[in-house]
């Protein structure tokens, strides 16, 4: 598995990079049809996955390199086509291939029954190990997942490793922590926010090269397999690619690619013999489930070994976790809004009543906050400031959203304060009210009434923006829904449930706001 990888460039920068790559690839093959055809073999992956999967070529950043690039070239070559790379977010690969953006997703896609149910998957072409990485200092203290009872173990959300952690949560009391990328789990491990990372050995190896002071337990927790994914109705092409992959296993060209990238190991010949023996892939997976050398009590193969749930049973199974996530969303939104209102009132008052310096500082805050993406702010708060202040994820999410929305709230309050006629303020002053009383009795209450409708709007927006905090490992409603969807291989039921829950939260809010407005309109003598 490879995933959205953010190192120095989160949020906007990442998006820009993606767009640039997309522009380049479209410029290169403007006449290409979606999917295969037109002499072009379009394949998709997330270029931020990084080495050894796919990364921008340091020598020529307009090109990508990686073992998946070589693999795509091999397949394209044997199909008689020209490979064309399509950059896509990792989490969107399944959906993107289904709608025909490219013929195949080659991106360290894990084999799973859910994926096989929803898409056409190729034979497995690589066996990877799920491994546990810990701090050097803890070496000897932990050996298996069972040692992490009551401890926080991080991984990439929606991955096979995350599924294993969810199972370990039930069976062993491990606390899973979900990340949106595969770099920050390791930096958080160094920071002590989590005690271990469970991820593919390719990613762990890369982290070991990058970070000092971490140690990967050599014994694997499980073995998984990478497959190519195609649209369900593209089984014919999948069969041709299976033939090509099997031929490449036989003639050693696949081995050459993995050797070139330093990925060849003892697991691969076993995978090769199983695939070439024509075993059903899921059987093959089961047969290799025990990592060579050590037999330990670990989940036997991909944790989704059972057939994915559908329909009502799926709803029943996932509803409790969705409701729990919805509670997180509500609590986070309410607390963030409270913070936003409190800070917003202070900022607005400062901008209306303050001196030149106060006004300049507060204007700077508002412009900086409104002019940069909230995602960037969350990253800076959680990861960027981690060396100085280590905020827990929920607190960072609360503060990040709260301070971001405070800028917008302050603008609402400022314009509402300024909308109260100056004449009323003067009338109040002439009557002998102090400035404080003018604010508290005349200006503030009227401004609040003016601000109510836009505030309700903002709160509804905040409810939905709270989904952004999944990048800080907080599992709220949207994150839980995507985990659910990845599990059962369909967005239909999880999406509908999730939408119903958001509506269930936002509609009453609008109602409360309308009632308040109606109440305030009534005479109060």
């Amino acid at each position: 598995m490879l995933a959205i990888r953010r190192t120095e460039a989160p949020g906007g920068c990442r998006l820009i990079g993606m767009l640039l790559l997309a522009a380049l690839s479209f410029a290169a093959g403007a006449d290409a049809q979606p999917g295969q055809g037109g002499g072009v073999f379009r394949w998709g992956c997330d270029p931020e996955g990084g080495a050894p999967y796919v990364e921008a070529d340091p020598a020529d950043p307009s090109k990508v390199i990686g073992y998946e690039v070589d693999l795509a070239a091999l397949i394209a070559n044997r199909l008689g086509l020209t490979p064309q790379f399509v950059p896509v977010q990792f989490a969107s690969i399944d959906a993107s291939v289904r709608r025909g953006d490219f013929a195949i997703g080659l991106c360290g896609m894990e084999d799973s029954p859910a994926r096989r149910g929803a898409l056409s998957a190729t034979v497995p072409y690589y066996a990877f190990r799920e491994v546990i990485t810990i701090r050097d200092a803890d070496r000897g203290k932990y050996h298996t997942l069972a040692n992490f009872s009551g401890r926080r173990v991080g991984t990439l959300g929606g991955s096979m490793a995350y599924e294993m952690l969810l199972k370990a949560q039930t069976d062993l009391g491990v606390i899973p922590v979900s990340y949106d990328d595969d770099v920050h789990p390791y930096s958080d491990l160094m920071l002590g926010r989590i005690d271990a990372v469970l991820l593919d050995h390719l990613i762990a190896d890369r982290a070991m090269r990058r970070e000092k002071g971490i140690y990967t337990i050599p014994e694997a927790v499980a073995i998984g397999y990478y497959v190519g994914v195609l649209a369900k109705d593209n089984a014919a092409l999948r069969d041709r690619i299976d033939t090509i992959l099997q031929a490449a296993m036989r003639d050693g060209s696949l081995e050459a690619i993995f050797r070139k990238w330093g990925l060849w190991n003892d697991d691969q010949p076993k995978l090769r013999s199983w695939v070439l023996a024509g075993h059903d892939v899921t059987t093959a997976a089961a047969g290799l489930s025990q990592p060579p050398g050590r037999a330990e009590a670990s989940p036997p193969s991909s944790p989704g070994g059972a057939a994915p749930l559908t329909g009502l049973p799926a709803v029943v199974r996932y509803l409790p976790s969705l409701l729990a996530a919805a509670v997180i969303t509500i609590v986070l939104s309410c607390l963030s809004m409270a913070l936003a209102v409190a800070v917003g009132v202070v900022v607005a008052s400062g901008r209306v009543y303050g001196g030149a310096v106060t006004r300049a500082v507060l204007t700077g805050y508002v412009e900086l906050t409104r002019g940069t993406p909230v995602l960037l702010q969350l990253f800076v708060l959680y990861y960027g400031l981690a060396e100085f202040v280590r905020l827990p994820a929920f607190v960072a999410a609360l503060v990040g959203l709260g301070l971001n929305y405070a800028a917008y709230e302050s603008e609402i309050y400022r314009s509402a304060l300024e909308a109260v006629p100056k004449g009323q303020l003067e009338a109040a002053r002439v009557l002998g009210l102090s400035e404080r009383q003018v604010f508290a009795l005349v200006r503030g209450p009227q401004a609040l009434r003016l601000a109510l409708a836009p505030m309700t709007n903002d709160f509804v927006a905040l409810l939905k923006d709270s989904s952004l905090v999944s990048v800080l490992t907080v599992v709220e409603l949207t994150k839980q829904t995507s985990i659910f969807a990845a599990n059962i291989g369909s967005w239909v039921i999880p999406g509908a449930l999730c939408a119903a829950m958001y509506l269930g939260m936002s509609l009453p809010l609008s109602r409360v706001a309308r009632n308040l407005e109606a109440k305030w309109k009534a005479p109060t003598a």
Partner: protein
Amino acid sequence: MEGTNGVDGVLLRARGVQLRRGARDVLLGVDLEVGSGEFVALMGLSGGGKTTFLRAVAGLEAFDRGQLAVDGVELQPGMLPRQPVLGALRRKVGMVFQSHYLFEHMSALQNVWLAPVHAYGIDRGEAEGRARQLLDQMGVGARASALPRELSGGEAQRVAIARALAVDPPLLLMDEPTASLDPARRDELGGTLMGLTTDGRTLLVATHDDDFVRDYADRVIVMAEGRVVEQGDPQQVLTNPQHPATRQLLHQTHARGSGRRVS
């Protein structure tokens, strides 16, 4: 400057009051006196400085030079009054604005008792009783629980007068009180204001309405280009204006057809 403590019967005294707003001279040296219990009309063309003068007296705008005193409270040029002068001034001067500026989120009754309770610490029940009494006196007692937006222009004005009177200031300033009133309402207002002066209150009313002035004011002061140019008995000044500005004023208002009489 002699006092304005009522001993000599003068409640408001202005001497050489100058006020500059940006590059424009608004008041170029206003000299005037208003006696205790007098109903004085302040007339003049638009832009002549009437409203600005009222605002300076109410402590809403700083004047640059000269002297201003209200019932023993002296205002200094160059800055807005500060405590304790400001507090003393607030007890002396009430103001009714042209647009009334009632507090939109409060009922008529709340508008009236707000300042007595919060600014002067009067017991809420007592203040509310007095507020009802004032609204009754102004003829809008039945509208006590209405919100400002539910009031007609005339009703809102009477609530605004009640609000200004609630803190019992000896001097009441009014800006264009007849601007939005029909003739019948205007006569009602005139009667109300005369009633206030018989209670000993002093009125300084800026207006364009020479018929109103003729009918109700004790004295008229005409301002033009930031100065007092003519003053005296309304019948005399308005029937036989001496200053060109007064003549122009009368000509304009009658050409607009706002007066009852065509002289």
